[in-house]
C-alpha cells in the first residue's frame, strides 16, 4: 500500500509519527509508566537519572510517569473538545447559513459577541465562574471555540446553498434537514476538517493554560499545564516544568503538521506544489 502523495511530506510523516506515538502512550500508560504517577515515594526534586529518567517533583513523584499519564487526560479531552466545537459550531453555522434571515442574524451576532472578547480571558472567566475542574475547563474552552466553526460553516453553506443540485433537491421536496445532510454537508466537510485539525493544538494550549492558572485539572491529577505551574515554583529544578512543557509542545506541533498536510491535500490549488515536494 502506498501513501497518497500529499502525505509523503517530511512534516506530515513527523507529525503523524509523533501523534501516533502520543496516542499509544495515552492508551498504554499503565503498562509503560515505571511508577505510580501519584505515589510520593521517590527522593524529592531528584534530577533526571536512572530510575527516574525525567527526574522527580517537589513531592517525590516520578515525572516520566506523570507525563505519560498526563497524555490520558490532555489528549482525549482535547479531541473531545474539538469534536464538540465542530458539532455545536457547525450545526449553528449551518442553520444560520441555510435558513438565513433572523436565524442568521441571531446566531451570527451572538458569535460576534463571543469574538469580541479576548479568547483566553473569556475562557478564564467562564472557568472561574463554573469552578475549577477539567470538565468545566472543557466547557469554558467550548464556549470560546464554537464561533469559529459557526462562521466558517455559514460561509460554506451560503456558497453551496444556491447551487443547482441543492435547489433541485429542494424542488423534489427534500426537507431542510435532509437537504442539509445529503446535499450540503458532503460538500463542506473538507475545510471544516482542516480547521478542526489545526485547532487541536490551540485547544490543547488553552486547556493546559487554564490548568496552569489553577482553573482546570484538580491536584494531584497529572495534567501537563498544572505540572508546568508547579515547576515554576522551583525554577532551579528545570526538569519539573520542562518535560510536561515538551509534551505540550510536541503534541501541538504534531497536530499542526497534520492539519497543514490535510489542508494541502484537500486544496486543489496546492496540488502541484505537493507533487514536487513529495518524497
Amino acid at each position, binding site marked *: 500500500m502506498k501513501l497518497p502523495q500529499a502525505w509523503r511530506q517530511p512534516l506530515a510523516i513527523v507529525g503523524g509519527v509523533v501523534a501516533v506515538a502520543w496516542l499509544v502512550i495515552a492508551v498504554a500508560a499503565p503498562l509503560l509508566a515505571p511508577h505510580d504517577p501519584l505515589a510520593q515515594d521517590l527522593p524529592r526534586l531528584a534530577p533526571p537519572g536512572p530510575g527516574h529518567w525525567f527526574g522527580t517533583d517537589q513531592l517525590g513523584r516520578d515525572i516520566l510517569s506523570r507525563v505519560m499519564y498526563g497524555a490520558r487526560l490532555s489528549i482525549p479531552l482535547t479531541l473531545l473538545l474539538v469534536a464538540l466545537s465542530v458539532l455545536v459550531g457547525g450545526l449553528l453555522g449551518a442553520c444560520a447559513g441555510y435558513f438565513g434571515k433572523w436565524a442568521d442574524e441571531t446566531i451570527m451576532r451572538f458569535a460576534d459577541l463571543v469574538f469580541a472578547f479576548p479568547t483566553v480571558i473569556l475562557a478564564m472567566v467562564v472557568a472561574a465562574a463554573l469552578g475549577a475542574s477539567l470538565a468545566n475547563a472543557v466547557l469554558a474552552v467550548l464556549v470560546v471555540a464554537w464561533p469559529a466553526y459557526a462562521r466558517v460553516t455559514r460561509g460554506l453553506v451560503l456558497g453551496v446553498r444556491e447551487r443547482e443540485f441543492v435547489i433541485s433537491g429542494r424542488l423534489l421536496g427534500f426537507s431542510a434537514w435532509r437537504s442539509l445532510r445529503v446535499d450540503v454537508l458532503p460538500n463542506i466537510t473538507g475545510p471544516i476538517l482542516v480547521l478542526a485539525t489545526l485547532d487541536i493544538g490551540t485547544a490543547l494550549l488553552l486547556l493546559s493554560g487554564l490548568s496552569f492558572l489553577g482553573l482546570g485539572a484538580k491536584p494531584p491529577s497529572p495534567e501537563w499545564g498544572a505540572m508546568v505551574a508547579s515547576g515554576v*515554583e522551583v525554577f532551579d529544578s528545570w526538569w519539573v516544568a520542562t518535560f510536561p512543557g515538551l509534551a505540550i509542545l510536541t503534541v501541538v506541533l504534531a497536530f499542526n503538521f497534520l492539519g497543514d498536510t490535510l489542508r494541502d491535500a484537500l486544496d486543489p490549488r496546492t496540488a502541484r506544489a505537493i507533487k514536487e515536494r513529495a518524497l
Partner: protein
Amino acid sequence: MAIRSRRPRAKAALLPVLLTGALALAACSNGGSSAPASQGGGTAAKTLVIDTSFNLKTADPGRTYEPTGLIVGKAAYDTLLTFDGSDVTKPVPSLADSYELSADGKTLTLKLHQGATFADGSPVTADDVVFSLDRVRDMKGTPSFLLDGVKVEKTDETTITLTSKTANPALPYILPNPALGIINSKLAKEHGATADPGDKAEQYLNSASVGSGPYTIESVNISSQVVLKANTKYWGPKKPVYDKVVLRNVESATQKLNVARGDSQVALDLSGDQVKGLPGNLQVNKTPSANVVFLLANRNSAVSETTSNPKFAEAVRKGIDYTGLLELAGEGSVQAPGVIPSMILGALPADQGAKRDVEGAKAALKESGVTDPKVKLEYPSELTLNGLSLQGIAERIQANLKEVGITVELAPSPVTTALDNYRNGKEELGLWWWGPDYPDPSDYLVFLPGKTVGLRAGWKAGADKEIEAAGDKAAAAIGDDARKQAYVDVQTKLNASSPFIPLIQPSQNIVTAASVTGLEFHPVWTVDVADLGTK
C-alpha cells in the same frame, strides 16, 4: 493564541517558549533596573540593598500592618518597649525606661526615657506618646485593635499610664509592635494628623518620617522600593551603620539571582528549596517562622457529618506524617507541637508534638463509626508562606490520609474565595496558618470554642466546657510562670480534643552577603534594619 486563528501552526507551539522567555527577561530587568544604589555590595559599603517580595500598603505607622510595612516602621519609629534581638519572651526598654503592670493586670505604668529626640532634633515628650497611641486606636486603621479599649494618659511629663477594662497582661508584648511607633505630634499635626478617622497625614507619612528611629524615610513607592536614610542624630545607643538602606520589591527566584551575584546584600524570602546550592560566600539564616500551619476538621455537623465526629479528627491527627511535611518545608522548619509557635511564651515542648501512628489512626477511624469517609480539603491555592506553597502540603496530606483509609478531595481556590469559606466556617477540612498579631500567647485564645478561629472550625461556645475554663484561667493569669503553665495546659487539652491539628512552622530563610553582620529573624518585624552591621 486564539483558537479561531486560521494558521496557528508552529507559531502557536512556540508561544509558551516565547512567553517564558519574556517573563524571565521581565523578572530580570525588574531586579536589575531598580538597583540605583547597589555597587556590587562593597565599594560604597555604606549602602545596603534588601530584596523582599513587598507586602506593603502604607508607611504610616498608624495604619501599617503588613510585613514590609513593619520592617520600614521598625527602622523609622521607636516604640515605648521593644525586644532584644529575636527574643520575644521579654519586652525591654526603648523610649520607656521601665514598665510596671499592676497586680490586677489592668494598669500599665511606663517611665519615659529622658533625652530621646526625634530625627529633627526636638525632644520626645509624653504628649507625643499620648497623641501617637490615641491616633492609632481612634483612627480605626488595621492595627487599631491592638489598643482596643486601652486608655492612654499622661500622669506627669515623664509618666504614661495605659488602663484596660479587663486584665491585659499581653500589653507589654503588644507595645513593641512598630504600628505603635511614636510620632512627632507637632510635625504630624501640621500635615493633617488627627486622632480620629478623619486623619489626613498618610500621604505625608508616605514621603517622610516623623519618628525617632535610627533611620528616616527618604522615599516610599509601595509597589517597587523604599529608601531609608541614616538618622545621624539618633539618640539611642545603637547608631545606624549604613548611610542608606534600599528595600526593593523582588520576586523570590530573582532575589536568589541578585544576592548570588552581589546585586543585593540581603534576600528575605527564599524557599527551603531555593537556598540549596547557593555560592559558599553567602550566609544562610534558617529560623522557624512564627507562622503555624494547621489543619481544621469542622465540628459543625451541618457542614459535615464526617469531620464533626471527634474520633475522625483523632484519626487525621494520627494519620499525618509530620516528618514528611518537614521534609517538604525544608531545613529550619519545625513541627508545631501546639498552636503556639516555639518562640512565644507558653509554647509546648517539641517532644509533645503529635506523631504518626497509622494503626492508631485506623483504629480511631473504626471507632468513629464513619465508613469509607470522603472529605473535601480547602486551601488557598496561590499563596506561599515563607516560600512554601500550601499546594504541596495539601497533596502530601492527601497521600498520608489515603493510607489510613480517608479519601481526601483537594479543593484549592484563589485566596479571596477560600478566605470567605474559612471565615464563615464552611470548610469541611481546611489548611491554613496563624501568624501572631503580637508575640503573646493570649493571641492564641482565638482557637477556643466560640472565638474567632474556633468558630471557623464550627466550634461553638459551650462545645467544650473544660477547655473554655482552662482558656479563661490562662487569660487572667498574671506572671510569666503562671501564664506559661496555663497556656501549656490549654494546648494539651486542645491537642486532645480540638478540631485543630497543628502541623509545622515553616522556616524563614534569609540569605545575606558575607559582609553583613547582626542579622536575626524576628517574628514580628522580620528584620530590624538597625541591627545590621558590616564587616
